[in-house]
């Protein structure tokens, strides 16, 4: 975390001069100097860094240069939008990915499997913003059935704003979550498929077949269950990636989440928001890895057995 703090701090020291965007291009030199002094940009770099780390340790991310508001408030407002989007995308990716993955794993050479695989290839190879724009063009401009931007009507629960409770909020979720999930979905499909194919060759499956157990039970109870362990690992780690990837999706769909906040901050050289965002994402990554490691313990009996034998 300290390294991330250092990297984000030093990175933003070289992205440009915030004073220029803050004062406008026709401000006088005295005014610039004054703003620079107020922001503490004239202090030596190590003092600036010490102040930066000290503030973060106290949970103070500072005041946005551009919006003149507490960065922690801004992130608090934007976080629900991003997390809801990521949650729906992750669900979509896992459920669709597992179902299609099992199907293509069992029916290896069928026509439908090949179609699924080819389409999913498009999912990884096309950039997110093109997929987003294509979906907008199809469903908003041509068919006119889904909104092209925004979050729809949201319900404010006090600490959290949710789009799950209104029809327009749910409709607004569809296109961005598909866009965001497509890459992960492809990943999951291929992973599940490979696992299924491998497991279906193993001796215990052959043995189960020999015992005359029904195909469905073999496929879903025995094979899939064992195949899911690596899938959980990978998707767990990838939820962090989804949050990071959401920058592009949020920009395309004008989704009022952290990603679009970050992008606006980059344009303006709003250093407090940028560094807070970086540190937030790094923190989420660390937490997710931690949680995934713990879930191993519960899912994989071998890890537990090793512990006990010690």
């Amino acid at each position, binding site marked *: 975390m300290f390294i991330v703090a250092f990297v984000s701090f030093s990175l933003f020291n070289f992205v*440009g001069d915030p004073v220029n965007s803050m004062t406008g291009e*026709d401000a006088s*030199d005295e005014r610039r100097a004054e703003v620079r002094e*107020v922001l503490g940009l004239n202090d030596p770099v190590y003092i600036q860094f010490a102040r930066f780390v000290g503030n973060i340790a106290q949970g103070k991310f500072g005041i946005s240069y551009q*919006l003149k508001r507490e960065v922690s408030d801004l992130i608090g407002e934007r976080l629900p939008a991003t997390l809801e989007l990521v949650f729906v995308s992750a669900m979509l990716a896992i459920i669709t990915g597992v179902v299609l993955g099992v199907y293509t794993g069992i029916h290896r050479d069928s026509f439908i499997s090949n179609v699924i695989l080819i389409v999913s290839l498009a999912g990884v190879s096309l950039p997110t913003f093109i997929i987003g724009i294509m979906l*907008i063009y199809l469903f*908003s401009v041509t068919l*006119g059935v889904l909104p092209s931007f*925004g979050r729809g009507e949201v319900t404010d629960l006090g600490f959290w704003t949710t789009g799950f409770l209104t029809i327009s909020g749910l409709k607004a979720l569809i296109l961005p979550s598909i866009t965001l999930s497509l890459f992960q979905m492809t990943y999951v499909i291929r992973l599940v498929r490979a696992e299924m194919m491998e497991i279906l060759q193993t001796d215990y499956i052959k043995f189960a077949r020999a015992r005359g157990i029904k195909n469905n039970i073999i496929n879903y109870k025995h094979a899939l269950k064992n195949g899911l362990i690596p899938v959980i690992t990978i998707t767990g780690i990838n939820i962090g990636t989804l949050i990071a990837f959401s920058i592009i999706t949020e920009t395309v769909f004008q989704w009022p989440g952290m990603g679009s906040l970050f992008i606006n901050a980059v*344009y303006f050289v709003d250093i407090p928001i940028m560094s807070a965002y970086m540190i937030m994402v790094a923190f989420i990554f660390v937490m997710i890895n931690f949680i995934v490691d713990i879930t191993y313990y519960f899912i994989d009996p071998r890890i537990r057995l090793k512990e006990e034998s010690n």
Partner: protein
Amino acid sequence: MKKLINIFLVLVMSGFVSTSYAASIKWSMPGDSLTLDPHAQNEGPTHMVSRQVYEGLVTPGIDMEILPQLAESWEATAPDTWIFNIRKGVKFHDGSSLTAGDIAFSINRAKTAPSDMVDLIKSVKSATAIDDNTVEVKTEGPNPILLNQLTQIFVMSESWAKANGCEVSYNWDAGETSYCASNANGTGPFKITFREQDVRTVFEKNNDWWGDHSSHNIDKIELLPIKNDATRVAALLSGEIDFTNVVPVQDIARIKSSAEHTVNMTPSNRTIFFGMDQGSAELNSSNVKGKNPFADKRVRLAMYHALDMEAIKDKVMRGQSFPAGIITAPGINGHTPERDQRLAYDPELSKALLAEAGYPDGFELTLDCPNDRYINDEAICVAAIGMFAKIGVTVNLDAKTKSQHFSEVKEGDANGMTSDMYMLGWGVPTFDSHYVYSYLFESSGSWNKVNFSNAKVDELVAAMGVETDLDKRNAMIAEAWDITQADVTYLPLHHQVVNQASKSNVDVPIRMNNEPLFRFANVN
């Protein structure tokens, strides 16, 4: 069953009645207002939002002419003293009445740091309320463009600002979020009834407005910012928004092809140009050592004749530009159609001029360009570099994001190297040439990064800043342009264009500063 049908009918009818008469506009632009505090940011989109809600003593009309607003009339009683007579019966959105005290308070608030309007009205020495309906404004010496400057100063309620702890725009040291940054209380034709920054802002018609609502039929405006160009265009085409004042050049043809939409265009008040460092002894990036090629007027002229702006207009700008001969746009005092004529595109003449100046084989240097500030900025630079290559001048492109570009042009790069040649665009909010001269031509001008210095021009700039006799002053402006145009101080490129697009039944007058005035808008 009958009951159900009745209930259904009532629901349908009530829905019908409540919506059928409300003419509303859904407006989108890439960014949102940064703050509702009218003095905290001197920035385009911020003023666009404030202008619907707040009013000034005077205001620019559709064609940027200065109209009375909260001041009914005014007179200059001495060269440095102005008396404004305040309109009676004006009410703020919270119901309180406007007094001269509110106006004096607002001007003083705007001219006190940390307000962002400090530089704009630094010539104002004091503003005081003489009685309830009269305000006296004193300036540092005569200021012929005071009214232009005052169009940007919005009036707040003194008691409201004080009651909510925002006597000043914001307080860095206290790290406080100002109430006035997220709430507005103006005197204007619309009031803000809902605001979620960057997501949605709702304006509703102010029925207690002093002015005449007959010039528009808008009851409700919703501002829905959409940053991504393609998404904004898609939202327009799918009918989710009615109007946008920022249209990407590449999508104009697509929107025009839709039967239900229209696109309007007008020259903006921003002119794009190249600056060439002609004052330094030696260029930093050039292979010519010991002297500065740009110090020779023939070289600057050669660069001028090498640029084919019509080709750039056709190929790079897709017709969306007005090639310029002067770095101030039409509609700004000092601009004339004659001055706006470009010198001919003539690469042969350029080569001859270069040979005459002692550079028959040309020379090499670096051009600094922004890549996210002006319309197609980097593409213009790339095209210009090809044209310079034809006359033997090898130009290397250094394109970067605006925040870096501007600070490097202004203060030099990390090694203190100043730019030899750069792209810049200059918008003129005061609609007067003095704004161009005091920044770009005066020896001490803060954006005079070509190191131009001319004693006569300095003298004229100082004089036009205080001369109140309009004819004499216009003669000074004309003389200054004569000198700098003959000198080829800058290389004018083109005037940018303002585009806006809307549904065909939505009529928002287009203005050269890209600022919509919904009090003149109609939905038919």
